[in-house]
């Protein structure tokens, strides 16, 4: 039910129903409290059942579909991959090395091709963020499990 048609109504309706069914099954398995009451189940069940109903409404009121621009999907997926890889790299090689890789990669995805600029970003971004967040604000940096540059340069 929308002003004008929304994109992918069939996929959205089916997805809502499937998420709703999965969430309902999980909600129904939430343990009862010590008095055998449903207290902890009410809201999860209400949310899950609402999704099933809304999915059905979405399918029932389906009238055409607005066009979905998929032209930049590879770029979006590349950025998603970079995001996940960046967090994983932080967890194994620490913040400095991960950011030195992620900064030029992000700039490259946004269309920057100047090698000097990309090189400068690889050095300046980790240094500046480390200085602001981990030195000035005193946040404890995420250390790498396998290797961390901080162990070498002693920048704690």
């Amino acid at each position: 039910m929308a002003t004008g048609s929304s994109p992918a109504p069939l996929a959205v309706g089916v997805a809502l129903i499937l998420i709703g069914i999965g969430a309902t099954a999980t909600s129904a398995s939430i343990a009862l409290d010590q008095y055998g009451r449903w207290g902890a189940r009410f809201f999860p069940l209400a949310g899950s059942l609402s999704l099933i109903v809304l999915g059905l409404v979405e399918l029932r009121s389906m009238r055409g579909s607005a066009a979905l621009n998929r032209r930049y999907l590879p770029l979006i997926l590349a950025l998603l991959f970079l995001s996940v890889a960046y967090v994983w790299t932080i967890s194994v090689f620490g913040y400095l090395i991960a950011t030195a890789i992620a900064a030029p990669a992000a700039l490259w995805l946004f269309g920057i091709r100047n090698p000097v600029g990309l090189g400068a970003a690889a050095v300046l971004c980790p240094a500046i963020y480390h200085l602001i967040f981990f030195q000035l604000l005193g946040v404890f940096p995420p250390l790498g499990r396998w290797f961390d540059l901080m162990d070498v340069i002693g920048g704690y």
Partner: protein
Amino acid sequence: MEIFPALASVLTDPILLGWVLLAAIVGMVVGAIPGLTASAAIAMLVPLTFYMEPLPALAFLYVIGKSGRYGGSIAAILFNTPGTAASAATQIDGYPLARQGKASKAMKVATISSVIGDFTGEILLIVGVAWIAIIALKLGPPELFAVYFAAFIVIGSVIGKSVTRGLASAALGVLVAMIGLDPISSTERFTFGSFDLTNGISLVPLMIGIFVLGEVFTQIEEKHVKVEMMPDSKDAARNGLSFAEYQPCLPHVFRSSFIGAFIGMLPGLGSAIAAFVAYGEGKRRAKNPEEWGHGALEGVAAPEAANNAVSGPSMAPLLTLGIPGSTIGAILIGVFLIHGIQIGPTLFLTSRDLVFALFACGLIGIVMYGLIGYFGAAFVGRFITRIPTNVLYPIIFLTSFVAAYTSRGNLFDVYVMVAAGFAGWLMRKLDFNPAAFVISFVLAGGAEETFRQALLLSDNGLLIFVQRPIAFGFLLIGLLALIARVRSVKRAERLRTERGLG
């Protein structure tokens, strides 16, 4: 009258004034950058405020919200690209004025109208909020749950293009909020055996993901769009603003300020609806409706006053009931909680001085962004055209990761932020409502608590919500809002079909 000592206290604190000034500048610049919103800036800056005292932290973010709402008009008028959803209404007349070489005149009208609207909203908040808190103290769990229920329905159904997808966004927000341990029985919910999930999903990484990283995903699709500023006329007569020129705008500004203030008090509706309602009402009552849409100064004044008048009153449900009226309110909840301040009606008993000092900072912030905007909007516009977006958004991308980590020093939160970022992009793409998702996520905890408390009070189960007249009234408001919205959507569909638009 607590506001006067609070004003005196703030005005004699140079460090606090410095934070307010910085917030006025940051908000204006961020609001003026197409694609970025004050909500995104605030979400990203929240972790920094954990290291500040409560008042400077809250004042900094609150004033960014105010100034960011105004900043959207700079993009709308100078770049023909609304910086925020609300400033799309300003663009209708603002851009034609800029094309006539009257960009500075339009900016001055926008600035004065925003300041008057914001002052009106802030004063209504200051005068009315304590009274609302007194009433709120008398509400029991059934009434409070009914208010939450009405808020869910209004937030989910009224904003956005699709009612179904808006409500689904709200339901998804509720489900995500249920992840973790049940606060009453400590039962695990939706944890799937993961230790990280037993602590639940933290608000800060979720918001950074939805509002900041989600926007970066959106902007990678639009990186080819170049922001260009309309050239301004050097002619003082074209760009100066006399009182005689502004006088016809005044009735529109005052009316729109009250429209904005009223809409601001209702949870979830926000600036965009206020601006368009005020524009429509202004055009309907205008002496020159034929000029609206072609560069009428009143057409800039009305939406700008309403847009900014939302800011103060949108804090009323947050401060008195703990229900955020806007995404900025949802973010501020996190800041209150981090600093150990319990929001809700008792806030006025426990932290009265802090609340009035915050209002005082809001008033000073309005003056500051008004002065900067009146004399420097064109400079801000030129500054933004020089910021290369293909450098800006990668920097925002990197900042969002470190900001999400900083909130709890936990890499799991960063994974949450990435997932929320992708979900935020997908929601925008598929006409879901990210704001409804986040506000529902924030509301869910309080709603569940009051619902279960109400059932414990009840001898007749769910009938307690019908037997208590105030609770029943709020449930009806929610249902009527939904019915009205569904009817308006169906009417719009019928009109489209009749006009052969499919």
